[in-house]
């Protein structure tokens, strides 16, 4: 029983790490742009597919980890500015419902772009996982990739992001725009640049989440929507715009899900949402969200 709990916890940690990478980008973009990017899930999926392709093309095991990072950066730097400048910049002053519809339309488009480029057959490429080898835990073999790399990268991303936002000038500029765009502009901050930068970082984080997930699973159409729904559950439970909160709830939901896999498999898909509904019923603004005067 104790061993089973340990295994479930380790699995949950890996799941949480993957979900966190995507959720933190989603919540960061929302915090600054005040737009929930439904297409964030597609960036995750495209990152995953591109990473798989690059790893396959390179064929050199030790380069495969670099290929994952390269794929994430490529998606962030190419698609991020394209989407923000080309589409989102046109709708910042529109109603919420229209903003949602626009990112949803983008999601519909990107889901098919992904199908057109990579087809609908499952894609599997686990070179990075094989390269890192395995570790024994309680008589059971784990891949180092799942046990060390995933949680390590997630933790490093969290720390780096928090350091960037709280300690560097550029990061604090972003925070300033989040607090009050007009005042920030009055003191000379170019909010257009801040939006562009934030969205690019968010897109790269989503793609990094995808690139990290790619070697552990078969890529099929539909992984994007699963991920956007799950990461929305994470950031809604945490409170929209909360970065450390997203880490805590990702862990909560990741663990909840893996315990369900071990002890009540039929509930696996439901657990994250049960947690979310339970939290939102008690705290409508999320675990770490501040209750503000209703914005209407």
């Amino acid at each position, binding site marked *: 029983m104790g061993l089973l709990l340990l295994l479930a916890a380790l699995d949950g940690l890996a799941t949480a790490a993957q979900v966190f990478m995507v959720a933190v980008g989603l919540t960061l973009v929302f915090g600054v742009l005040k737009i929930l990017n439904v297409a964030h899930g597609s960036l995750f999926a495209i990152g995953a597919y591109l990473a798989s392709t690059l790893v396959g093309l390179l064929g050199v095991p030790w380069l495969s980890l670099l290929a994952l990072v390269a794929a994430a950066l490529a998606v962030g730097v190419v698609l991020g500015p394209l989407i923000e400048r080309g589409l989102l910049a046109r709708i910042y002053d529109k109603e919420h419902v229209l903003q949602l519809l626009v990112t949803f339309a983008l999601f*519909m488009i990107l889901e098919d772009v992904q199908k057109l480029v990579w087809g609908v057959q499952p894609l599997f490429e686990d070179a990075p996982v094989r390269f890192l080898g395995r570790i024994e835990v309680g008589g059971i073999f784990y891949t180092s990739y799942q046990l060390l790399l995933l949680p390590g990268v997630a933790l490093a991303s969290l720390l780096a992001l928090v350091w960037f936002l709280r300690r560097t000038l550029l990061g604090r500029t972003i925070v300033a725009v989040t607090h009050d765009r007009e005042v920030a502009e009055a003191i000379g901050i170019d909010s257009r640049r801040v939006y562009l930068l934030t969205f690019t970082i968010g897109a790269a984080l989503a793609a990094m989440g995808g690139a990290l997930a790619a070697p552990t699973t078969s890529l099929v159409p539909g992984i994007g929507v699963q991920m956007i729904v799950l990461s929305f559950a994470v950031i809604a439970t945490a409170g929209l715009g909360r970065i450390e909160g997203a880490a805590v709830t990702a862990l909560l939901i990741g663990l909840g899900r893996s315990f369900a896999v071990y002890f009540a498999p039929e509930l696996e898909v439901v657990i994250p949402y049960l947690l979310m509904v339970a939290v939102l019923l008690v705290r409508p603004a999320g675990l770490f969200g501040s209750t503000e005067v209703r914005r209407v």
Partner: protein
Amino acid sequence: MRRYLPVAAAVALLLLLAVLQPWLRFVLTIALSTGLAVLGIAMLLRAGQVSFGHALYVAAGAYAVAFARPHLGEGLLLLLLATLVGTLLGLLVGLFVARYRDIFFGMLNLAFSMVAWSLLEKLYGLTRGTDGIRVARPMLLGFALEGAAWEWALLLAALAAALLAGALVARYLASPAGSALGAIKTRETRLEFAGVSARRVLLQAYVVSAGLAGLGGAFVALATLHVTPLLAYWTHSGELVFVAILGGTGNVLGPFLGAVVFELVRVHAAASFPDAWQMILGLVLLAIILTAARGLVGLLDDLAARLGRRG
């Protein structure tokens, strides 16, 4: 009387199409059932809220028919039952989601529908997973119908349901409760100052929209005689939102007009580009939103206004 002219013209055109092209009877039945679900979504759009998960209620209605069919032979009772199941599920979920607006409203609906989709796929013993459930053809008003007679009967039933639902929703939107719904979009605080509970107003509309989607789902089940989890998948919800925007939310004819055009185009286009269909929908959706167009109903209004000026 002028008010009913567009409706009469639409009904006449629809019946004409069904007479001239027999294979269209099936397509038009599906279009009307889509229109029923979209009518509910259009109501919510009045309140400035968009649901990315209404396929949940379409699936609920369709599966209600599939599960009840072995015990119930009368089609009309199945339709009623499906509406009831959609309504009750809508009440259950609505009690939760009506507390939220905008992003939360849209995404929570998406989350619930995707959970339902996963469950429909996973609980094989109950739902037969992705294989879906075959539905035996029921009787209609006690008559066991076959072939063309069945197709006509179902089409006319769907048409009757659409007319009834359209009339009721039009009445509702013109009523004080309907005006309160619109006020959620424009200025919710004032609504609360006026002593009206915004949450209750939205919940009412949500429950009605879920019931309409359930009824639409029942017609889908009866027309295709087969239900699968795909009915609850997000792409289906996306299509419903698409049709709502395409048709235009200005009046209750919009959803049905949008649905008929959508299904007619889909018959040809979806087969030609199966992997680019969502992309085309997304591009058209973007075009409509970014140009602030009012959908097909808006186009017809402009056309009518121009003709009126000339004549």
